[in-house]
């Protein structure tokens, strides 16, 4: 049973307060100018996206273990199950951003294609390229899709968490609930395959409305996977250092380290594939995406820095077998990768919404700290609600004696 640490709880509340103050300051300092509140909305959106990715990937991870009938991860299954309880919070924020964007409430003009008149022929801001995308990019369908994603994800997350608890109460090997979980996971994986891509198009790619990339969905998925594995691994290791998850051995850590290593490479592969084709073809409306990120002074350093640490640190530090069994080194790499991808999430949004005016500053970090505080509070709270050690599961024995 996980016992809440009072100091961590207090620290998380302080972090949430920092986040709230940063949020208020972000809106306050951004109230003047041509586009009031543009910085503030971008700030909320990218921080929320980062934590949405982490919590959503935890659901995918649990579902993947069911579908693959994988045994190795069972003893640490409570960790992703706790992380996925953060999904409703990020989903609500995401829906709030989507709804305010549709209503243009509070200066939320993140989605350029939602501007009135942009798809009406004859109006001063008419854009025929955007008008051509109307069948997909229109407010009604956008709202329906956004709500649909959230409903599917949150429902599956809740079901999987519930089924996992049923398995513990069922006794013996918990087979009945296992088959139930397998069915839910199958549906989730199929739906997630589509919704992860379309959500990435809707919420992220549509900001740069003229631009599109056919592998964008996988690029975002690979980022979610990297940060998801990094946070699962980091939490597992930190819990283990405090004396929980007693069955955790080197093989589990090695397996998770392999996932982190592999997905860091996949992410770089995706990033580079997208970059190289656009660079080679050199078509103006495609190149603009990378021009904004590489040529503008306020993003150039962040772009190279995030790509550098997201690729080089995991590739070099986790290459050897012993490195993936070294807890301190894994903790270091996880933290670096999470910071690197946090910067990269900023770069997914800011150049499209703020162009040359964006800069990653103290308010962005402050709100990020606030989200992290809420994340810690929610996740540790749900971790403490049930036994951290799984008692009844068909593959429990295999997982406890894992040896690779």
């Amino acid at each position, binding site marked *: 049973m996980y016992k809440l640490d009072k100091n961590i709880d207090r620290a998380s509340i302080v972090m949430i307060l920092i986040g709230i103050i940063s949020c208020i300051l972000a809106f306050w300092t951004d109230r003047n100018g041509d586009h009031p509140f543009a910085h503030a909305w971008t700030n909320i959106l990218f921080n929320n996206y980062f934590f949405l990715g982490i919590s959503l990937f935890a659901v995918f991870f649990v579902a993947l273990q069911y579908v693959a009938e994988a045994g190795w991860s069972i003893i640490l299954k409570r960790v992703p199950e706790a992380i996925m309880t953060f999904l409703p919070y990020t989903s609500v924020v995401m829906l709030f951003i989507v709804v305010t964007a549709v209503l243009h409430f509070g200066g939320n003009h993140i989605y350029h294609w939602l501007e009135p008149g942009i798809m009406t022929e004859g109006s001063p801001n008419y854009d025929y390229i955007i008008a051509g995308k109307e069948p997909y990019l229109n407010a009604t369908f956008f709202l329906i899709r956004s709500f649909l994603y959230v409903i599917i994800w949150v429902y599956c997350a809740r079901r999987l968490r519930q089924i996992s608890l049923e398995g513990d109460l069922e006794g013996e090997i918990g087979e009945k609930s296992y088959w139930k979980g397998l069915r839910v996971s199958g549906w989730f994986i199929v739906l997630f395959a589509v919704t992860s891509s379309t959500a990435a198009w809707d919420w992220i790619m549509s900001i740069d409305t003229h631009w599109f990339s056919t592998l964008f969905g996988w690029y975002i998925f690979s980022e979610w996977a990297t940060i998801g594995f990094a946070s699962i691994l980091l939490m597992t290791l930190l819990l283990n250092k405090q004396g929980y998850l007693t069955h955790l051995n080197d093989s589990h850590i090695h397996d998770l380290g392999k996932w982190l290593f592999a997905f860091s490479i996949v992410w770089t592969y995706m990033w*580079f594939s997208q*970059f*190289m084709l656009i*660079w*080679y073809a*050199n078509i103006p409306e495609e190149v603009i995406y990378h021009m904004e990120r590489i040529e503008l002074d306020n993003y150039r350093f962040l772009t190279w820095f995030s790509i550098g640490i997201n690729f080089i640190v995991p590739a070099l530090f986790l*290459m*050897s*077998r012993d490195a993936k069994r070294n807890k301190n080194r894994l903790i270091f790499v996880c933290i670096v990768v999470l910071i690197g991808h946090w910067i990269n999430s900023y770069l997914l949004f800011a150049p499209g919404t703020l162009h040359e005016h964006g800069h990653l500053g103290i308010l962005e970090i402050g709100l990020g700290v606030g989200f992290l505080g809420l994340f810690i509070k929610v996740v540790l709270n749900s971790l403490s609600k049930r036994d951290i050690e799984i008692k009844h599961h068909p593959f429990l024995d295999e997982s406890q004696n894992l*040896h690779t």
Partner: protein
Amino acid sequence: MENKIIHAIFDDEQDVLSVVKDLRDQKIVVNEVYSPFPIHGLDSVLGLKETRMAITAFIYGCIGLSFGALLIYYIMISGVGKSWPMNIGGKPNFTFYHNLPSFVPIIFECTVLFAGHLMSLTYLFRNRLYPGATTSSPDPRTTDDKFLVEVIYDDNKKEVISLLKKSNVSEINEKDEV
């Protein structure tokens, strides 16, 4: 002293694991185990050293990377006396640095090619599986469903045999060899 060999044949790989462990605990030399498939955990029980395959993979990858970079530099940038610099899609073709993104796939493929192929060859040669190699297995049944443990003894033959008999052995063949 003359080394003598006992071939103990087993039907199940779990018996092999336990018997090898028992034998080695008694400081008896287990020379080799022949098995139709890799047995999980056998290398640690046999006291084999950790494989150095990963290090060779890294070295071969580095060789492949350098080779790929030199190859593409020669083909696309320098040539012999800049004989035929390639102009593809109007890309700058005077510097390696400016063209690097388009060279990355080739360099990457060379790295993978070198690491993969040279590693397989190293593995085969290290196991003496070059062309024309003859079998080293003393019993053809080890390619089917039997496991063979080769034990070397000198003056402790009785001890070895009694230990083997205690386990789930299916037959014990004594081979006198020098």
